[in-house]
């Protein structure tokens, strides 16, 4: 729980220190003034500011504060410049009390620095009280040990959940978001339920906050879902890269793969055994076996030429034919590479022209704007002489043609550019493919030629010599066996990895099925029902009239916000009823949290709840309701302009509220400049 106990604001001017010092009690507190512009909101803003929640007002740092903190302070006729300013806020979590000090304006002190004194305001400065410096609104100040908000989180004994963020990561739910549901700010706080919530990159932040305040179990589920989502994408990614690697490497050895599943699936033993690499219709292992056999046969062969002259002759012929074939193929591939290259060149040329065109068209568009600033008639498509409509073109005789506007033209060119880029990239891909083929062909050609050379040497050499061909062939086979062997080993390794991934996938699928089908636990439903009952009973008491049958109001299970027949309640509400709905909902949240031991810190701030000419009776009901709240602190900033409001407050039992009167100007002189502390 959080209680605000005392607020002390100090504004140092050349005419002494101005400021105020107020204590707050448990239960209902009024900050009341006769007039509207005398500093109530400045006081409330100081509370936000000290807690580092100024983003609820809208903005970071001292700029959300009113000018009395920053520039000048008025006293009667005289105006004094502000030299330094800051505020002390004493808060308690029920057991301990700390004081927060944050400056609004001070040379040499960053306003993101917060000092925490482990004592009340009156004890500051006594020797054995500790103080610590912390930061707000810096990167990681919500998670870092020295971040004020992570300190506050620990101080309030709450544990903020990790929630999905809009950038697909997870982030801690920010305290500012939670307190936006309790501190209703004067201006945009009254626009809609929870409308003061700052945007901090949390997905569905309103929903998350409500879940947290009511402590719903769904938060756990959502978290798990999110975790599974990342798991899913990581497996898919790994699987994909594994498969791609296998395919690329086996293509390099001109092998084909079979039975490779392209997306993750659970691999049964049978599936697993079907995954294989083939070369020329044999599986790779068989092929390697074959090669080895050939190799062995060669070793058995007599390496003398005299013994196999005929064989050498026929083999030479065969080799030469295939060399010719390969050469033809190579020639073909080379010429298509050339044509690909030339079309890429052409396209790049065109792209350059189009880029130039786009740039100049953009220039033309801006020149046209410049022209219309100077009131040039041509920039408005009218003729400067006869004021008739003209087309924006200098092409002669274009009267009958319809012409694109410059913006259309730019879009048109951009579309062309995209098309050309697409064409270019596909040509590049082709080029890559052809290159690969060419290198492959060149390699094979090289092998064949050296084979042919050895054969020829053998033919013309002396009969008793050792056959070069056979040795050559042996070497060739040896290297091929080696590289295929390597591929096969690599493939088997990858297969094991694939198996692992498949097991992971299976785990993932299992986990996915264990996710509860029903989104809410029974307790959650109970909580939401309680929220609804409180909300409706509050609405009835505050005199909500925009719908006849108030029992039509329901709490949406999607957003946890009130809806009528599935539509946001706001659409059907009058302006003042919208205010009533905000009262009712904010109070109902606290009531529900009290009833069902939720996470509500038990403090509410309403700045000017009397918006849109609320009837005074309803106002009284609102105060009555607040007084009835147990275990809570409510601070209400209110203008007591008319006797009605005064009457409404005086009707309340005197011991049930604490009235802080703000006189004509909230900040009075505390001391003169000579006796600074």
């Amino acid at each position: 729980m959080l209680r605000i106990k005392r607020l002390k604001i100090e504004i140092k001017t050349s005419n002494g220190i101005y400021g105020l010092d107020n204590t707050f009690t448990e239960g209902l507190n009024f900050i009341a003034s006769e007039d509207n512009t005398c500093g109530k909101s400045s006081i409330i803003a100081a509370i936000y500011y000290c807690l580092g929640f100024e983003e609820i007002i809208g903005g970071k740092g001292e700029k959300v504060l009113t000018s009395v903190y920053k520039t000048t302070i008025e006293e009667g006729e005289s105006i004094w410049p502000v030299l330094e300013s800051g505020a002390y806020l004493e808060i308690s979590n029920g057991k301990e009390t700390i004081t927060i000090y944050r400056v609004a304006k001070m040379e040499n002190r960053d306003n993101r620095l917060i000092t925490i004194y482990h004592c009340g305001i009156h004890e500051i400065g006594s020797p054995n009280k500790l103080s610590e410096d912390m930061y707000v609104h810096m990167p990681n100040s919500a998670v870092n040990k020295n971040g004020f908000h992570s300190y506050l989180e620990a101080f309030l004994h709450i544990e903020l959940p990790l929630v999905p963020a809009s950038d697909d990561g997870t982030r801690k739910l920010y305290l500012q978001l939670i307190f936006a549901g309790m501190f209703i700010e004067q201006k945009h706080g009254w626009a809609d339920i929870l409308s003061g919530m700052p945007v901090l990159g949390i997905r569905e932040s309103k929903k998350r906050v409500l879940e947290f305040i009511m402590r719903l179990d769904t938060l756990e589920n959502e978290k798990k879902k999110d975790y599974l989502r990342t798991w899913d994408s990581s497996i898919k990614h790994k699987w994909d890269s594994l498969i791609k690697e296998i395919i690329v490497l086996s293509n390099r050895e001109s092998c084909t793969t079979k039975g490779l599943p392209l997306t993750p699936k659970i691999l049964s033993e049978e599936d697993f055994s079907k995954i294989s690499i083939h070369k020329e219709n044999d599986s790779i292992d068989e092929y390697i076996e074959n090669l080895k056999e050939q190799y062995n046969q060669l070793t058995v062969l007599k390496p003398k030429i005299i013994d196999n002259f005929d064989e050498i002759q026929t083999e030479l012929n065969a080799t030469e034919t295939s060399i010719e074939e390969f050469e033809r193929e190579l020639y073909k591939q080379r010429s298509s590479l050339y044509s690909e290259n030339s079309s890429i060149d052409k396209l790049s040329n065109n792209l350059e022209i189009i880029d130039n065109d786009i740039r100049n068209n953009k220039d033309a568009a801006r020149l046209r704007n410049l022209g219309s600033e100077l009131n040039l008639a041509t920039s408005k498509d009218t003729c400067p002489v006869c004021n008739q409509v003209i087309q924006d073109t200098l092409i002669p005789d274009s009267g009958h043609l319809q012409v694109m506007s410059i913006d259309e033209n730019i879009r048109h060119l951009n579309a062309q550019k995209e098309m050309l880029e697409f064409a270019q990239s596909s040509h590049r891909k082709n080029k890559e493919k052809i290159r690969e083929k060419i290198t492959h062909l060149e390699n094979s050609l090289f092998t064949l030629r050296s084979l042919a050379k050895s054969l020829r040497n053998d033919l013309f050499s002396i009969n008793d010599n050792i056959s070069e061909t056979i040795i050559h062939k042996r070497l060739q086979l040896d290297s091929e066996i080696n590289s295929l062997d390597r591929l096969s080993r690599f493939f088997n390794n990858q297969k094991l990895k694939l198996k692992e991934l498949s097991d992971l996938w299976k785990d993932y699928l299992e986990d996915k099925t264990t996710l509860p089908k029903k989104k809410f636990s029974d307790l959650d439903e109970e909580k939401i029902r309680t929220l609804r009952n409180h909300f409706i009973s509050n609405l009835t008491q505050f005199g909500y009239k925009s719908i006849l049958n108030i029992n039509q109001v329901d709490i949406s299970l999607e957003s946890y916000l009130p809806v009528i027949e599935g539509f946001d309640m706001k659409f059907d509400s009058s302006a003042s009823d919208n205010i009533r709905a905000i009262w009712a909902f904010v109070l109902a949240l606290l009531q529900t949290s009290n009833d069902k031991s939720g996470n509500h810190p038990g403090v509410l701030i309403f700045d000017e709840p009397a918006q849109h000419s609320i009837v005074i009776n309803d106002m009284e009901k609102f105060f009555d309701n607040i007084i009835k709240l147990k275990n809570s602190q409510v601070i209400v900033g209110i203008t007591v302009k008319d006797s009605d409001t005064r009457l409404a407050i005086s009707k309340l039992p005197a011991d049930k509220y604490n009235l802080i009167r703000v006189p004509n100007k909230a900040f009075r002189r505390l001391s003169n400049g000579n006796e600074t502390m």
Partner: protein
Amino acid sequence: MDNSYLIADEILFEAKPDAVPYNYRISYKMAQLCLIIEICCRGGCSLLKLHMISIGLSTKQDMEILKDLAYDKLTSYTVVRFDPAVNHAVRYAIADGLIFQQQNGLFRLTKIGKNYVKRIIKDSQLMSDEKRYLSLLSTMLTEEKIKALTSLWRYSSAED
């Protein structure tokens, strides 16, 4: 013959707007001409010069040739292209009060025109290539050079 179209009622052709090259946009061409008068001329600019520089700006190659001519590196620069778009743009610019024609036939910028050019020059993103080239060319391409060139035409075309 006239009724032989079977589905003439069912198919409608709608003319789609045509793209216009930037060189034929009124705003672009007017701005270009104003820039030429401002950067490349002293005391007025002839129509012929506007044509030559305007064409010279169209491609990189043209830019080089024109510059060589202006810096006297070329002896023969025979082909001068005339683009009716330039004439059109000059007319629009006069009507819009950006430029005016002096007694001697040369064009100058009006006050509005000067203001317009000033703004264009101030914006460094706008027409940067054109500005760079024109300030390179500066006033090197004088009216005298153009006159000398045109007087050559008389002889060369007399032969044809």
